[in-house]
C-alpha cells in the first residue's frame, strides 16, 4: 500500500513540475518528487516480518531475517543531495525577485 502511495506522489510531483508557473511552486513540486522517490526505493527492500538491520543485545545473531540494508544506504545519500539542490534553488529565487520584482515566469519581461 505504501508502494502505490509513493508512485502516486511521483506522478503528482512530475505533473506539478511540468505545469506550474510560480518559481516557489516549482521548487515545492521538486521536493514532493524527491520524497516519493525515496519512499519507493526503500519499499523495494522491505521484507514482511524482518528486523531493522542493526545488531543489538536482543537481536544478537546473524541467523535472523533482516530487512535489505542496501537501498537504505543509497536513500541516505539521496536525501542530503536533495537538501543541497533546494538550498541553491531558493538562493536563485531570492535573487530573481530582487531583479524582476515578481515570482511568476509570465511577468518577467525583457530588462
Amino acid at each position, binding site marked *: *500500500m*505504501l*508502494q*502505490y502511495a509513493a*508512485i*502516486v506522489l*511521483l*506522478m503528482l510531483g*512530475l*505533473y506539478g513540475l*511540468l*505545469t506550474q508557473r510560480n518559481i516557489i511552486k516549482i521548487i515545492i513540486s521538486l521536493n514532493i518528487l524527491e520524497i516519493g522517490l525515496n519512499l519507493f526505493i526503500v*519499499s*523495494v*527492500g*522491505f*521484507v*514482511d516480518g*524482518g528486523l*531493522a*538491520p*542493526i*545488531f*543489538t*543485545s536482543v537481536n*544478537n*545473531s*546473524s*541467523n535472523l*531475517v*533482516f*530487512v*535489505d*540494508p*542496501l537501498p*537504505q*544506504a543509497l536513500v*541516505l*545519500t539521496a536525501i*542530503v*543531495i536533495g537538501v*543541497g*539542490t533546494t*538550498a*541553491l534553488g*531558493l*538562493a*536563485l529565487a*531570492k*535573487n530573481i525577485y530582487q531583479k524582476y520584482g515578481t515570482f511568476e515566469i509570465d511577468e518577467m519581461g525583457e530588462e
Partner: protein
Amino acid sequence: MKNFLALVFTLFLGFMIITALSNNEAFPKYGEADVSTRVSQKYLDRSVNGNPGEIIFREATNLESGPANTVTAIVADYRSFDTLGEVTVLFISSLGVALLLGSTKQRRMELDFHPNFMLKVGSRALFGIILMTGIYISIHGHLTPGGGFPGGTMIASSMLLLYLADDEFRAKIKGFKILESAAGSAYVIIGLLGLLIGSYFLENLLNNGVLGYLFSAGMIPIIYVLIGLKVGSEISGVIDNFLTEESV
C-alpha cells in the same frame, strides 16, 4: 493544451511503473523480497571476501567490517567513495549559495517584529541540549541509527535556534569556514594515507575490535565526527547567508 499533454504523459509514466512491478526478478511483490539471493546478504554476514561464520553481539572480534549498524558499514566502509561524492556535492551547493547571496559588508535583515527578552534568554538553555544531542548521535553512528549527516544537521539546528530567537545575533563565520575546510581536507587526507600505507584508497587502517563496544570499528567513529563537523558548519553558513543583507 499544455496541461492536457502533461497529464497524459504523467499517466503513461505511472502505468509503465505499475506494469514493471508485476512479480518479476527485479521487483518482487511488496514485502516478499528474498534477501538471500541479493548481494546484501554478503553485507549482512560481513563476508564479501569469504570466511562466513556466525556473528554474535559482543563476542565476534576483528570482523571484516566492524560496526554493529549494517547501514553504517555500507556507507562508511564498503561504499565509502560514494560518501566522498556526497560531501563534494554539499560543498559545491554551499559554495554556490555563498557566491549568490554574499557581499563584502553584511548586517542582519531588518524585520517588522522583534522577539522579546524572555525568548532571548530562554533559548540559551535549549541551545546546549540540542548541541549535545547532535554530538551524541554523531559519535555513536556505529551502534545506533543516525551517523554523521543527521548529527551535523542537528548542530546546525541549534545555531538556527539562536538566529531565530535573537534579533541581532550573528555567529563567527570566519571560524566556521576554517572548520569546514579543515574537516573536509582531513577526510581526503585519511583516504590518501590508506593509499600510501595500506593497499587501497580509504582503507580502514586501525583494528576492528569487538562488535558492539564503543571503541570498535577502526576509523569509522573518527570519520563520522569529521563529517558531522563539516556538515554542521556548512549548513550554519547557508543559514547565515539567507538571513543577512548588504549594508550601506
